[in-house]
């Protein structure tokens, strides 16, 4: 599914040199479905570390009213 080399593809999503995803980054809107659910890993093709960090970021952004829980 994904390898460590694959992490380069998610460089715009992660902070420089890390796998940490910022909840303030509007790019996370592309990783939720039209109904507001977090896209699964077999759609995003993200490495596991990135996917976990991404899910955390989406949950934080939802809590702060930046993106919706559902639609």
């Amino acid at each position, binding site marked *: 599914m994904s390898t460590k080399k694959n992490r380069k593809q998610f460089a715009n999503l992660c902070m420089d040199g890390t796998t940490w995803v910022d909840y*303030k980054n509007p790019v996370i809107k592309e990783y939720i479905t039209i109904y507001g659910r977090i896209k699964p890993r077999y759609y995003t093709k993200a490495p596991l570390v990135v996917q976990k960090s991404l899910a955390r970021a989406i949950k934080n952004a939802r809590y702060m009213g930046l993106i919706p*829980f559902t639609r």
Partner: protein
Amino acid sequence: MPPKAKKTVKKEEVNPEDIELVQYEIMAILDPDVTVDQHDKNFVALKKIVTDLGGTISHEEEWGKREFAYTIKKKTHGYYIVMNLEMDPAQMPELNAQFRITNYLVRNLIIKTPTGYTNLTYDWDAEPEVIEKKKPVVKKAPVAKKEVAPEPEPVKEIPTEEVAEVTEKAEKTEEAEATKEVAEKPAEEKVKGGEKQLEKLDEKLEELLSGDDDLNL
């Protein structure tokens, strides 16, 4: 049963130099339905809560009034504030308790930032659809040019390098064209018939214009 001895918790006195400070980020939503003066007072009071508990604010940013994705406490808008600070982690429960009892705070989020974190400003109002629409236009244009371009190239290359082969090829092509014409004549008789008529008309016109006739045009 003998009465249990009361447990006495001794507070360990910690040397302030031994405390390991942690980098935090606080995002807070202030109540937008207040006057400008009251809002400034609220913002100062919020920062005072942090600084009183030993936090040092390194960066603060105001996002301004934004619309929520869903209603929070019967409000549709909120005033967003982001602060980066350095603080003793032992004080965080107290900070949370203080935030919980502040009236003007709609919602707040405290996270630990990773090492090497730098403040970046993001534009949430930019529409990603506009960027996606521009991409295919750029990609399609060179593809169309490539299809057209290769055709004239071989014609230019032949006379410069391979003169001897060109003559041979030309003879072959002439023969091939002759055979093709023979084969294609029945199919293209109607088209060529029209062309012949035009050629005849052209010849007549030339004869008339040349003045060899007695018409004196």
